[in-house]
């Protein structure tokens, strides 16, 4: 079960991204309705998503679709994930207007991927793509990431709203992901 975290600046520039493979057993995953019709070799983590992209229309309106063709190969998974994350930004902004809390639970769903978001008072967006439900863990994880992010911002060598390259930050976020996700 994998998770994808993206930290985005107020101007939607990606500042940090992380892919985490959780060792915890997956809770009841929502099986994609298309998966049962497909041969077993194509039911990878992204099979449902890819099939949906190639033909069927999805519920959300992604505005970063790479042409319409699905490129075969390992690299496309990354693009799909990023596309889903980008697509959810619109929804996040809508929810932010309505809700006052920082942790916006799951704002979007795309086949088997749920998008959870966390918006800091400084309008930084933390977007997490995950497959299973884990509200408490994710909330704790987001809070942890927020603390680590604040500490990084206080480093005089770090310029605000630039990609975060600190290895200390990276290792701590990974440790936190291991702990909560």
């Amino acid at each position, binding site marked *: 079960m994998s998770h994808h975290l993206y930290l985005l600046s107020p101007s939607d520039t990606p500042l940090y991204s992380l892919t985490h493979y959780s060792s915890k057993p997956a809770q009841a995953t929502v099986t994609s309705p298309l998966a049962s019709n497909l041969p077993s070799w194509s039911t990878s983590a992204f099979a449902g998503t890819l099939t949906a992209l190639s033909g069927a229309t999805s519920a959300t309106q992604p505005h970063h679709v790479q042409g319409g063709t699905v490129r075969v190969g390992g690299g496309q998974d990354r693009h799909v994930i990023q596309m889903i994350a980008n697509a959810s930004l619109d929804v996040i902004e809508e929810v932010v207007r309505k809700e006052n809390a920082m942790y916006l639970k799951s704002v979007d769903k795309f086949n088997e991927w749920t998008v959870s978001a966390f918006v800091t008072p400084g309008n930084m967006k933390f977007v997490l793509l995950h497959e299973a439900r884990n509200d408490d863990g994710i909330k704790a994880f987001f809070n942890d990431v927020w603390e680590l992010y604040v*500490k990084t911002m*206080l*480093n*005089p*060598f*770090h310029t605000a709203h630039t990609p975060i*390259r*600190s290895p*200390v930050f990276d290792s701590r976020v990974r440790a936190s992901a291991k702990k909560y996700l």
Partner: protein
Amino acid sequence: MASTSKQYKAIGEDIWKGRTEKINSELFALTYGALVIQLIQDYEDFAEVNKQLEKMGYNIGTRLIEDFLARSAIGRCADFKEVGEVVAKVGFKSFLNITPIVTHAAPPPAASSRTSTPAPQSNAVGSSFTLTLDENPLVEFVELPEDALEGGLWFSNVLCGVLRGALEMMQVQATFISDVLRGDETTEIRVTLLKYLEEEVPVADD
């Protein structure tokens, strides 16, 4: 007036407590950090930045010593060893609220063999003490990037300058030996006595 180590600690503690104007440590750390970043941008050479930080510290130190002597009312130190003790337990404590650990070192033997008048051991030119800082309020949130590590930046070099300026009565050299920001185990400053100015008249003793 030879005070014991405990008395020095007590004096330092009293001065720190007696200060009415204290500053938020985060503000202090952030201001210093911004200062270093600006110097790096202006000079673009880490050795030059080290030098500038030391110079700034020197200017601070020459003024700071007056404030220190006025508040602490400590008399002359008998020898360089005592200087080290006072600097660590009273000086650092009263200004930064930290107490670095002092380790003394005798001068290297070869150097003192040429002096005509055999000076007492701990006043000999070349004797030194090392201050080990287990906490440093200046580096509260700092992480050095790759180029600063390679360029040899001593982030808290201003402290060396302050020591040199404050101990202006005797010519000392203060340099960083190691720094946790650069990945070392400890943060250490070595202060070495270069010259002892015998002629100095003690301030206001009539």
